[in-house]
């Protein structure tokens, strides 16, 4: 608990504030009973000064407490936000595929903000008001036992009702918060997909999806207020009800001379001073439940297990031999495995092309090597070491992937390129750009400093892929994975890139996912993926000559008629 000092200070200051809040009405009672009744002018002056002093202390303590809590709670919020961010960065891709981004966003912004506000205002008020109530009630009991105990007893049924309502409020709050996340998710999706929505003219259709969720959010919001509309007034009028009870009792007591008029005034003033602490309790308790729900939602992320954790071992002298041993892989939500019984050995320095039909699992295979996903059976070995035993940072610096979907961030071209090696020099960058035929970067308006990505200059698919390639090359990995990185390049550029890559791949183990014969030619050997396992391995020409399916997959002149006939027969 890094902020215990501040919280302790606030907790010490809070009772002082409560003390003042109780003291002032008592003093007011005294002044009526004492100096005013006695006609003591000096006494009135003294008492007034005393009340002023108490008021000043009250305000001063309040200022100090708020000042401390403000800084503390903001810092606390920021710390938790950063911890959550760390956790999210550490969580494996599987988690990110499952969780909608709007749900994550609503947790890191809305829920943390709510928690902060509760810590800053709600929590202390709740504590203070509770203390206030306890103190006032104790004083009442001390002042007049019978009346005090009456007050005490009458509280019980209200406590029961409140507990029930607050619990229901909490359940509905959860709904509201979850649905807020849903709405954020749809909103985000519609904004990312705006070009597709537009080009199909589907604005009304996509609006329906958004609207459905927004209406559900509204319904939950209305529900929540309905519960509040019972809970809050109940607690707000409760002190007044007590007042009726007490007035009746004390009036009788005063009439019988058991209480002085001054005592009745003090008693009633005390009771009235409960109006706000008790009345606000409804709001504060619901606020607490909301904060609790927010905390639960945040904890769900914190509690999510990190399945891809760093191993201990480091390879001293990496050579880049990759072996896949009886590898199987199944998606979380699937019953059938995508890969099963897959074996493949890649010698250091060798380049293997991985081919297979659309959706055969090629990208899955290559994602297993840098452990973006983990095998569900078998093992992936790098230089004979199971990648799960390896230090994750080392593994990911030894294996670099150029993705088919080149993810560019809204950052300078330089920052985008040096993602995997922040200390790269301009010369390293130039070299990588040369190999990837991405010299166009220098022709951008601000060269390497030009901002790319969504908030910057937009590039064509081919340009983006070449940047992704340069980014991977720049890491100087032992194992370079090209996940269909050349698909959007035109023929001339592809030839250029491939020529340069051939020399760059010397001494580097290469794994190239390919659709085209031209790309396959980069490789020493070709592995063909069929039904989740490697069906054939050999050189391009061997496979062309001996494997009809391969010919079908890679050769341009192969006739598709038989396959289509088969397809139509299905």
């Amino acid at each position: 608990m890094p902020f215990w000092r501040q919280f302790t200070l606030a907790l010490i200051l809070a009772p002082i504030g409560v003390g003042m809040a109780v003291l002032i009405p008592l003093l007011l009672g005294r002044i009526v009973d004492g100096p005013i009744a006695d006609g003591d002018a000096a006494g009135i002056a003294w008492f007034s000064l005393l009340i002023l002093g108490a008021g000043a202390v009250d305000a001063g303590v309040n200022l100090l407490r708020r000042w401390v809590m403000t800084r503390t709670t903001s810092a606390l919020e920021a710390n938790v936000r950063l911890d959550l961010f760390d956790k999210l960065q550490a969580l494996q891709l599987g988690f990110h595929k499952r969780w909608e981004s709007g749900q994550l966003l609503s947790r890191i912004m809305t829920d943390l903000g709510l928690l902060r506000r509760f810590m800053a205002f709600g929590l202390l008020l709740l504590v203070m008001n509770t203390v206030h109530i306890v103190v006032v009630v104790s004083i009442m009991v001390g002042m007049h036992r019978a009346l005090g105990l009456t007050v005490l007893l009458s509280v019980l049924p209200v406590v029961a009702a409140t507990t029930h309502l607050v619990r229901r409020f909490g359940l509905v709050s959860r709904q509201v918060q979850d649905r807020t996340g849903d709405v954020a998710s749809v909103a985000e999706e519609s904004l990312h997909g705006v070009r597709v929505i537009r080009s199909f003219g589907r604005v009304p259709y996509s609006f329906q999806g958004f609207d459905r969720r927004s209406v559900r959010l509204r319904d939950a919001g209305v529900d929540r207020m309905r519960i509040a509309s019972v809970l809050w007034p109940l607690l707000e009028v409760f002190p007044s009800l007590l007042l009726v009870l007490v007035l009746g009792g004390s009036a009788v007591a005063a009439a019988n001379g058991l209480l002085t008029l001054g005592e009745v005034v003090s008693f009633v003033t005390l009771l009235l001073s409960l109006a706000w602490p008790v009345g606000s309790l409804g709001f504060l308790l619901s606020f607490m439940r909301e904060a609790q729900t927010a905390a639960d939602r945040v904890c769900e992320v914190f509690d999510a297990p990190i399945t891809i954790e760093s191993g201990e071992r480091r390879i001293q002298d990496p050579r880049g031999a990759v072996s896949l041993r009886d590898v199987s892989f199944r998606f979380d939500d699937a019953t059938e495995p995508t890969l099963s019984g897959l074996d493949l050995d890649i010698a250091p320095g060798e380049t293997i092309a991985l081919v297979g039909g659309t959706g055969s699992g090629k990208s899955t295979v290559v994602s297993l090597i840098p452990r973006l996903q983990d095998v569900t059976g078998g093992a992936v070995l790098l230089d004979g070491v199971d990648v799960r035993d390896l230090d994750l940072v080392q593994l990911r610096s030894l294996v670099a992937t150029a993705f088919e979907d080149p993810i560019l961030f809204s950052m300078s071209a330089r920052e985008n390129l040096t993602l995997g090696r922040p200390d790269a020099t301009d010369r390293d960058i130039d070299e990588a750009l040369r190999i990837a035929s991405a010299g166009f970067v220098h022709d951008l308006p601000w060269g390497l400093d030009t901002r790319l990505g969504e908030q910057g200059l937009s590039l064509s698919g081919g340009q983006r892929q070449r940047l992704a390639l340069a980014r991977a090359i720049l890491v100087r990995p032992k194992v370079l994975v090209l996940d269909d990185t050349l698909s959007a390049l035109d023929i001339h550029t592809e030839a250029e890139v491939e020529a340069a890559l051939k020399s760059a791949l010397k001494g580097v183990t290469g794994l190239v996912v390919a659709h085209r014969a031209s790309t396959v030619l980069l490789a020493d050997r070709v592995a063909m993926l069929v039904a989740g396992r490697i069906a054939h391995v050999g050189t391009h020409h061997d496979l062309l000559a001996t494997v009809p399916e391969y010919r079908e997959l890679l050769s341009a002149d192969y006739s598709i008629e038989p396959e289509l006939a088969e397809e139509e027969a299905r």
Partner: protein
Amino acid sequence: MTDQQDRALEDWRGVKQEIVEETDATVALRPASRRLLADLVRPYHRWGAVLVVVVILESVARLGIPVLVQRVLDNGIPDLQTGTTSTLTTLLAVMVAAIVVQATCRAFFLRRSGIIGNELLLTLRRRLYRQFQRLSVGFHDRYTSGRAVSRMTSDVEAVQELVLQGLDVVVAALLTIVGSTVILLLLDWRLALVAFATYPLLWFLMRWFTRAATRAFRHVRTLSAVVIVQFIETMTGIKAVQAFRREPRSRDLYEAVALRYRDANTRALRVFARAMPGIQFIGHVGIVVVVAVGGFMALNGQLTVGTLAAFVLYVRMFFDPMQDIGQFISSLQSALTALEKIAGVMDEEPDVHDPEHPVELPEARGGVAFDGVGFSYVEGVPVLPELDLDIPAGQTLALVGTTGAGKTTIAKLVARFYDPQRGAVQLDGVDLRDLDDATLRRHVTLLTQENFIFAGSIADNIAFGRPDATREEIVAAARAVGAHPFIAGMEKGYDTDTGKRGSRLSAGQRQLVAFARVVLADPRVVILDEATSSLDVPTERIVQRALATILADRTAIIIAHRLSTVEVADRVVVLQHGRIVEDGPPEVLVAGGGRYADLHRAWLASLA
């Protein structure tokens, strides 16, 4: 945070053309934000009147209670001592009645204002969504999705806080203040004037507070958007972040913005932290003055003890809601700043407008023409200097050229993502600017390499092309592009969940789903911008074959690096720097020995 630090922080972001920070524009948007708020509240003005009456009733009941207490002390107890109980019982009965009224009114108010508040937020969300979808693609290219998301989430939530909590408090608070002021005057106007002596102090404090809070909250909202943008971007690109071990650096960058956001929040809350105890202290001073002066008055017999006690209660009652008002002012300022940002979006006009008098075009043949079209994204850098291109209905045209030749721009102009600055793009001789959006989209569909997959099943995603399509039609469309085998092979077939952003599908599968969408949409003009690059050869061939039939009676514009896709074209246009350098049937161009012939030769060689 100094400017220098700001710059250091921004260094990594790199330079961009025309960085227009919206913060500069927000001050101008203040009236707009108030208008928007008024506009949102307007439909509920009748209910508003009812609620004010309810709150007045509630407040009268609530404020009546101390008066009744005073009566009990002044009359009820003395009467009891003389043996009369009726005064006391009557007073207590009236109190109970007041309590019932208070509770009923309050419950009614909360219930109704909860409904209205949530309705209002729904309206705001709907409007904002519609506006974002109405604005042209050019706007989205500029505005970026992260900022738009922050408008739709955190800014709406700031308004929510005002609507759901603020109004509730402020109406009651204002009435309490007015009510207790009146009662003070009625109880004893001399003492009331004494109590009012503290009001000017209060006024100065409130004025300072409002101004300081406005400034502080504007800063908070701007930074909250920055934090959201940074978060979304990191999480969208998490694969690259992890693969390239970027976690520490991206954390540093996020930390920088998160801490600035924290500091802004702290500053805003400190304004609050200073104002609230200030109000409290002024309240105490008021009470002391009343007690002192009232005490002397009581001493001189000008005031009963009961009146003084009641007076003290009402002075307290006057100051208690001041804190609520302070709270309200801060959520109002926060909400107004959020509304400024939202109003900024609502005030945007799409660069591409629907015409006022659209030309009816129920059936299109599909002829597309560029008539002297000039277009540039950035002034002075023309992408298309002056393009004349006539594509007869039914023709399949391939656009070929190097990066930056303007191929994608042509595609976007036909899809009317942008309007040309000069000349006109026409469909069947009608300027696209004279067609309404629904008509244009029915006839023209652009398929890009983006292949955005929405959350939902595969069937839902294909049906995006035509939401009312039956399952049979969806399957037929999937079969036509060769997507059926892979879909049928999945466990839940067409009902398989695509995962977030289609993460369960490979790039090639996503392209096929997108293709099936187009087939289902059945437009007269199809534009394919790099739509087949991730397909393997057999699948591409199936698509190819499908294209040959699908495109047979349609107009098509195909952009592809793979000449295999171009093979289905009737005509090839080679572009360079936005100008047409070659134009003709592919076989003629191949024989002609120009650029296209070069490309073709290289492509043949690559197939070896």
